[in-house]
């Protein structure tokens, strides 16, 4: 038996290593969008009708923005537009990526059904001048089958929204909204004032393409920082646009879409009140569709996903936009976020000393409420600090861990001045350690009271018999992080649950957390749970590369 056990274990470990070398995690999130050329970017958009799909099988009639002609480029480089290009209609509209200081030109052609009347775009926070079209109340409007051109100076960095300024209660509900990302004038460089490595701090601020030599050095960012501020650095970024849909409005609009009409205000009579939304969307998709890749061919009109992944210690920029008419309390499991900015305006201190660097003044939140028309930029980080047990299951018993294992008692954790194992440690981490950014006070502290598998014992708790609990599809099979610790923690018992696919115990074994609306009725899709405004965020071990490319 003993031989069989160790053989099985070696087989599992071997299979895990092979898998780990073959597979990255198919996260494919990042913040993809289209670009319009240098200095004076130009975007040729069209508003038109189409359909989006929902996980309950529904195909819903919508209006959306798309590309009238193909854009001059896309970003980030690692997540290019698919060969099919930018569609004529998508939900949300194309994410426009520009640089701070650019003069941005957006041409909108109105290809909505004639019965919808005129349409327009608002660019909140920017001074817009318009050429062509017809005057509307909030903006110059594009008349039927004609165009209007808006021009504005992108003077404020950060995350912004754009949406219809015509009959908003109907047109925004129907899907006419999108995002603009303004990259700071520092571009791909690190903002001045960052406390550089060498002062005993980890290197967590990198120029684009100059990442640390970690096991996973892929770079999917649009810039090195969200703003021209040393505390706005990030290593990974995601954007979540929240909206809801009342299917009754969409079916009424569909029925009336073929009405003949010559009025600029359209000829539709769609009741937008009382409002009973049944679909709750992140980036135009409901859970679990939001976990599929960006530009997935399954969703030709819903190109953007919501599927955040990160490694311990990485600074993650979270861009949140309220695009619908309701507020949604977005609860981020795992840690707080520091609010950097609202509507592209940084929340900063007023230093007592003139000329001193203003610091962050935004609140720390575990629930970031989305508000219609408002954008939020926040920084998230997860390290596992302070659990009082070693998340990698390092043990003082090197023999038990196995000499080739990451759990080997010889694996170092030298604290930097904040207590983590980083490039700021003495001696420094090289950046390719499987336990990079480990919280060293918990290093080698056991979780389990009794010996089990090849992890330490003498800890505080006894874990349950895995056969009497229900195992979730994102559960790696153990409390520990990474395939090595996961394999060692189970001894001869196979890792439950069998068939875990979303968080493979042998190749990923990440920590999974739910990021979701805490108006819990909104994590449903047309009354079906689970669905709606829900995402699973994975903290992957450093040995598991995160692939956000197409």
């Amino acid at each position, binding site marked *: 038996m003993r031989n069989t056990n160790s053989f099985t274990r070696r087989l599992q470990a071997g299979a895990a290593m092979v898998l780990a070398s073959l597979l990255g995690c198919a996260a494919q999130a990042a913040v993809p969008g289209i670009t319009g050329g240098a200095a004076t970017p130009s975007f040729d958009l069209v508003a038109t009708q189409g359909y989006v799909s929902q996980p309950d099988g529904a195909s819903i009639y919508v209006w959306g923005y798309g590309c009238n002609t193909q854009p001059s480029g896309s970003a980030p480089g690692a997540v290019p537009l698919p060969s099919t290009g930018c569609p004529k209609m998508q939900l949300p509209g194309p994410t426009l990526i520009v640089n701070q200081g650019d003069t941005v030109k957006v041409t909108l052609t109105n290809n909505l059904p004639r019965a919808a009347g005129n349409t327009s775009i608002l660019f909140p926070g920017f001074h817009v001048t318009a050429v062509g079209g017809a005057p509307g109340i909030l903006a110059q409007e594009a008349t039927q089958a004609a165009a209007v051109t808006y021009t504005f100076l992108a003077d404020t960095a950060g995350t912004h929204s754009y949406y219809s300024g015509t009959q908003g209660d109907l047109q925004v509900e129907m899907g006419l909204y999108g995002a603009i990302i303004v990259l700071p004038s520092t571009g791909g460089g690190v903002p001045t004032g960052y406390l550089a490595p060498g002062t005993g701090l980890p290197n967590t601020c990198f120029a684009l393409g100059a990442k640390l030599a970690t096991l996973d050095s892929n770079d999917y960012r649009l810039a090195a920082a969200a703003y021209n501020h040393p505390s706005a650095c990030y290593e990974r970024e995601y954007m979540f646009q929240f909206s809801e849909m009342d299917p009754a409005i969409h079916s009424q609009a569909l029925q009336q879409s073929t009405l003949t009409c010559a009025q600029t205000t359209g000829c539709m009579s769609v009741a937008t009140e009382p409002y009973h939304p049944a679909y709750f969307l992140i980036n135009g998709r409901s859970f679990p569709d939001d976990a599929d890749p960006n530009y997935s061919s399954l969703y030709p009109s819903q190109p953007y996903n919501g599927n955040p992944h990160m490694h311990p210690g990485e600074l993650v920029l979270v861009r949140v936009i309220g695009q619908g008419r309701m507020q949604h309390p977005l609860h981020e499991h795992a840690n707080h976020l520091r609010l950097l900015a609202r509507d592209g305006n940084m929340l900063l201190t007023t230093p007592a000393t003139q000329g001193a660097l203003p610091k962050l003044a935004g609140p720390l939140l575990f629930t970031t409420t989305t508000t219609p028309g408002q954008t939020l930029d926040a920084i998230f*980080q997860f390290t596992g*600090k302070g659990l009082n047990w070693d998340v990698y299951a390092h043990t003082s018993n090197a023999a038990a861990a196995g000499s080739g294992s990451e759990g080997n008692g010889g694996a170092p954790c030298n604290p930097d001045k904040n207590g983590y194992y980083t490039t700021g440690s003495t001696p420094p981490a090289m950046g390719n350690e499987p336990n990079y950014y480990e919280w060293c006070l918990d290093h080698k502290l056991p979780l389990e009271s009794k010996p089990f598998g090849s992890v330490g014992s003498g800890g505080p708790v006894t874990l349950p018999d895995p056969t009497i609990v229900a195992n979730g599809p994102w559960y790696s099979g153990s409390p520990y992080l990474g395939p090595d610790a996961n394999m060692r923690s189970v001894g001869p018992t196979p890792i439950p649950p069998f068939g875990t696919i979303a968080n493979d115990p042998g190749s990923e074994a990440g920590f999974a957390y739910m990021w979701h609306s805490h108006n819990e009725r909104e994590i449903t899709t047309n009354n079906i749970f689970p669905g709606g405004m829900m995402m699973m965020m994975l903290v992957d071990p450093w040995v598991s590369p995160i692939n956000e490319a197409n």
Partner: protein
Amino acid sequence: MFNPQLIRRAVPTILLTFLALPAAAQSFRVQCPTQTKLHPLVNGLPNPHIKCQQISGGDGFATMGDGTQTYMFSFGPLSGLADIVNGQPGTETAAVFNQNNLDPSGNVLDAVKIGAPDGASYAFNGAIGLVPDVEAQNGNIPAQPTTGPGSELSPAAWAQQHALLTGHVDPRLVMDVGVLNGNIPAPMIAIDEGDELFLTLTNVGMVMRPDLFEQHTVHFHGYPNASAFYDGVPDASVAINIGGSFTYYYLAPEAGTYMWHCHISPPEHLQMGMVGQLYVRPRQNSVATGASLYAQLNTDQSDVSKKCDRTDMLCSAQLPAAANSVARDATKHYAYDDGDGSTAFDVEYPIQMHGFDPNFHFVGMTFNPESFADNKDKFFLPNGRSYPDTINTAPLSTQATDGTPHFSQPLNTVINIPANGKALLRISDLNVTEFHTLASLGIKMHVIGLNARLLRDQDGNNMDYYTNSITLGGGETIDVILDATGIAAPQKFYLYTPQLDHLSNDAENFGGMMTEVNVCNAVDPTSKKCS
């Protein structure tokens, strides 16, 4: 190359190796060690910084403001029962938690019975069900003397007295107390920064819904650097089946007002009532009277587990911008590790805002398919009750379908503030359908914390503010101080919601999200009664 016969014979062998189980196969069970690596025995006694609590996951009934009984999926207390019925947290030290449910003769204590706790005189705070595992310890029990002390006992009584409490429970005792015994809000959890918490969830099943095989979990809502394993999300961890127990383990994080709830099918289990309060008291409470709060926080900066500066994006209790000489006040407690006394208070009141949709609860009791999009709450519940029940100082009980009254809503929301003193309102919202506003008439609300973090910027300036009302979405918390300085006692004020449709109890058009604030001469900080 392969012998199919051999492979066929080998398969069962390989499968057998897969079936090797951990040593502690268990169903109901509690865990509450008297010592850990971090917290060793103190003079041979259990370390007081080890805190334990047991809760049931099941169902129960609650009484609404208009007198109707409402069915709930709910958590109930399985430890600290006496404290909970008195409006206190059910979190106990290991010394209190680990009490034998049997008397020295081996008979079940009177306190462990159907309908417990059953009155004001109820005093048992130990873990329900905890008994010595005589069978498992047979070899380790000393031999009974044939003469002298001990010889008079029956062999069973001798064995019972000399066996250790190892977490073994008698499931009958757990079921007697735990079935149909749900509370709204769920049993309160309160710990101190640095405590280790062992929270055991025991799933007793929902007797009103025998068609459901519902699991339950505990989500520590807002915990920083949470463990995915102990996060309670069934998709990302394990969930606890009926007839099973699971012990959640956390080292208490930074001080603040958090909350907890079940994370199984949240639109259903939260609406049905599986929501509770959780807060962590700051280490600043243990600064010696008269010592400088700032000096202590400054000293803490040399400890990486406590330091907070701008190199950590996600901590808020930074040193105040300017040094100060504010001393630890013997009569005050603090909400955060503020270093300047700005979060001092005399008495604290957890207030959890929730709402019940009676249609959904009816559907939940009657085996009907549920819809979520049309959820509409009709009962608005600060601490599980609507006005005027919010000012009834007695614990509310509701007769369940077993014909027995069960304490269902232990918490009133009467806010008593001593003259010239301060009350801390730890406000949380776990409504699953809409936002809640709570307003104060007469006394300004001083907001000092948000989402379990001190409102302070990275330069060390406090970002506290005054307001007359606060608005929270589901999953948010806020810390508000009501300052009675300069207000003559006695005087009465009100907390209420300006969302006027929330000032109702279903068809009754006055009630809902409302309670009283009394300024009186003195308030007992534990019982919170005016004296």
